[in-house]
């Protein structure tokens, strides 16, 4: 819920700065090593958006797989969230390269004219 509030407040701010009236899509990236569950995000999103400028918007989640770098043998490797040890030399001296992302990438927004056009003829909407 806190995460979804973070997504919405960033999206609202970006949309308002751009002079938009309505948000139709929000795109985020979520690393595999975070505790964020897409199902819970979507549920919170559906609960929090009604009555806001993002009512009816789609939340698109891109999962970022976990990758690490081994400081002993220099290997870069992908892994699941439970196993960070280097698969090449079994070193424990490793750094996570990606997988802890919690990032809002972009939004699709409409200005006042587009909102009015969409209201006049929903069929014309993309």
């Amino acid at each position, binding site marked *: 819920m806190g995460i979804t509030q*973070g997504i919405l407040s*960033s999206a609202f701010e970006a949309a308002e700065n751009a002079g938009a009236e309505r948000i139709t899509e929000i795109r985020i990236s979520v690393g595999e090593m975070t*505790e964020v569950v897409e199902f819970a995000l979507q549920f919170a999103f559906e609960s929090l958006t009604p009555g806001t400028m993002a009512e009816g918007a789609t939340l698109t989640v891109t999962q970022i797989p976990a990758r690490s770098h081994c400081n002993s043998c220099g290997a870069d490797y992908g892994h699941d969230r439970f196993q*960070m040890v280097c698969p090449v030399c079994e070193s424990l*001296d490793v750094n996570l390269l990606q997988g802890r992302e*919690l990032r809002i*990438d*972009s939004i699709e927004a409409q200005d006042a004219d587009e909102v009015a056009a969409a209201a006049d003829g929903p069929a014309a909407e993309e």
Partner: protein
Amino acid sequence: MATIDVSKPILDRNEKLAAENRARFDASGVFVLDLMASPGAGKTSTILATIAALRDRYGIAVIEGDIASKVDAEKVKAHGIPAVQINTGGACHLESDMIKRAVDALPLDELDLIIVENVGNLVCPTEFYLGEHAKVMILSVPEGHDKPYKYPGIFQISEAVILNKVDTMPVFDFDEAEFDSVVRSLNPAAPIFRIAATKGQGIDGWAEWLAQRIEQVRAAAGKEPR
């Protein structure tokens, strides 16, 4: 008008405030620890044992995070240590604005260590940076050795893992070797401290690790070693 590029962290506001908190802690040479565990793992007992080990050497304060009540802050205050209670009113974790307000109520210039007792939860606190220098988690023996499989995130974000209530090991079917090996694969660099907080057992190693970290932050702020 189509696509608007945003490209920023989802928890942007929290992280900016946390960075402000951190700058304040660094300038004052105060090491801040975010202590996380499930309810009943012994966070408050570990804090009291840590205070007993380090209070002669360092100025210590505690920020207590709970959904409700001020029971924990009262326990700490009873030992003559400044404590601020944060009630999250239902929220399952602390956020950096709560820490900012709590720190305003503490005598930062007299302190070397602030221990933040996060809300009892093995999931949500992992994603929220508060401005702390280190997150550390406690698992207690009765919770079982399989917890790293179920809650990998908290074991990975923690710089050290405390295994509490080791005096109850004979009663519970806790597989120490398996626990060590899973924690190691999740977080190769983290030391595991075995303690029994209410008995004062094993506190020395943990307190020494903490003292080293405190000294680093003190030195960076130009304070003399203690």
